[in-house]
């Protein structure tokens, strides 16, 4: 059984009188621990697919089974719980809360999950260490560089030890070197077993994934797997 199973997924946006088929008949299997890059022209439905996989959006039709469970029929609160415990998001624009320190931003998912302050402290300290942010814990986002911000965001995305990491153009706002660094970090996490799905415009980055999906007009155009090195 694959970790992610999408069957006949349709996502249609109503734009005035016209309908936009952001996703059409999407059929996809992703196993636990895979490293997948999603590429394709702008408007081809990459972000829509990622939002759907992250349970931030519901398909108009079709089925999404996550770890064997049909999650399309879950209630909003149950979906929130799945997001909290199984899914980590990394965004192009980091989405850090500006008034909170790096530490507090990383602790947010733990806060939402009701973890005790004591456990929180230990886990956040560990994460700061792991991501090379030990001296930056009490800095606010505007006191951090772009790369540091994205590392805080990744630390936050992984603090709950999710089963999969969804990244929508995680290096889009970073320069080449920093982007490389962030990509390496994500790959390290994938190496420890987390499923990694990265949407990217950067062919260089996309080629680093073992599995590459190309999208076109809301459909999966090609899906190629590179044999493991």
């Amino acid at each position, binding site marked *: 059984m694959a970790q992610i199973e999408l069957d006949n997924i349709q996502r249609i946006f109503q734009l005035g009188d016209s309908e936009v088929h952001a996703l059409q008949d999407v059929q996809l299997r992703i196993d636990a621990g895979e490293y997948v890059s999603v590429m394709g022209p702008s408007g081809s439905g990459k972000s829509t697919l990622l939002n759907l996989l992250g349970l931030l959006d519901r398909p108009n039709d079709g089925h999404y089974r996550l770890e064997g469970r049909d999650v399309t029929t879950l209630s909003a609160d149950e979906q929130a719980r799945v997001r909290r415990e199984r899914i980590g998001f990394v965004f192009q624009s980091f989405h850090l809360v500006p*008034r909170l320190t790096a530490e507090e931003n990383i602790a947010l998912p733990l806060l939402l999950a009701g973890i005790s302050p004591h456990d929180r402290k230990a886990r956040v300290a560990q994460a700061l260490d792991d991501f090379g942010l030990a001296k930056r814990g009490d800095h606010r986002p505007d006191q951090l560089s772009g790369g540091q911000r994205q590392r805080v965001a990744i630390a936050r995305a992984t603090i709950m030890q999710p089963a999969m990491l969804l990244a929508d153009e995680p290096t889009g706002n970073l320069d080449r070197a920093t982007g490389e660094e962030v990509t390496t970090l994500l790959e390290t996490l994938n190496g420890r077993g987390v499923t990694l799905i990265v949407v990217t415009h950067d062919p260089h980055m996309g080629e680093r994934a073992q599995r590459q999906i190309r999208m076109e007009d809301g459909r999966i155009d090609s899906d190629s797997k590179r044999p493991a090195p």
Partner: protein
Amino acid sequence: MMRSRDILGFAIRAATAYPVRTGLMMLAMAIGVAAVVLLTALGDGARRYVVREFSALGSSLIIVLPGRTETGGVGAGSFVTNTPRDLTVDDAAALLRASGVTRVAPLVLGNSEIAYAGKLREVMVIGTTRAFADIRNYRLGQGRFLPEEDWRRGSAVAVIGATLHQELFGAEPALGQMIRVGDRRYRVIGVLAASGSGLGMNADELVIIPVAAAQALFNASSLFRIFAEARDRDAVPAAKTQILDILKARHDGEEDVTLITQDAVLGTFDRILGALTLAVAGIAAISLAVAGILVMNVMLVAITQRTSEIGLLKALGATGSIIRLVFLTEAALLSIAGALAGLLLGHLGAWGLRLMFPVLPAYPPDWAVFAGLGTAIVTGVLFGVMPARHAATLDPVDALSKR
């Protein structure tokens, strides 16, 4: 589920991160609550002041006024006589026959000049009898009150108030000295103890002379009032009937006097000022509703400002109810903080009021404090519900794409 302490902490961080917005909202709440506290303190202070002053008159007091105040429209009697008969000293004396009445004091009132050793004062002069001191509970600082004597005689003696004593005599002894009132001379036989109170007539600035002397001074044969005291509070209704009967008989069957009892006056003032306080509190409460609307708008703006944050929280697994709770807590916190600040402000204002007008017991009544705080918090939370619900229903994908 998120711990309530963490929700509180998160809300506090959010509130303090936007000091201008937070300050504005708290100010609106504070002004509303302060207005309720201060205005009710003023209203209730006035009510208490009046009640206290009237209570000082004595609860078994019956005041007789010449003339009938019609209350039920134009009665048949009002066509018969247009000018009421004057009250006379004999009328007053006749009231002593009433079994329910223990003391009677006739009262003549006027302004006159008083002089001692070249010092002049314009004062209020009361002409009355010995019983007046007992009815009004006057205490003597020095000497004695008017002598028990024939009401028609009017010996040339005077009792003066404490302030007047101070102004005319200073440290010199006053007893036995002659003062001039109008064109007559009187020997000072007593000085009232300082009281500081007295509705309309401050006893500290009075000159009291025998009733006949005052009638001669003001060249009047009529009385301003008759003060009668019933045996006790319960005897007041019976005494009133007796007084009315006696005076009616003496005035050719005409009921041309008005009786005022403290209960009636007190009740009326109590009601009027109580209603006034309520009305004022109501007006002040409107400012609280306005504050509530401001809270709503400020929260809505806050949610627009923080849309992407809400999207993020949802992506991180916050349920709708958590989001709702977080924003509701923030609104409630601001309302409570504002209300408490307003309470402080109101009490400060009331304190200032008491400093400025020491006679006014300007304390906000408990009900007003509770109502003010309660309304502030309830409106704050109530008007916070709508924005919080709005935040909870935001679409996470849309919210995340907002910058």
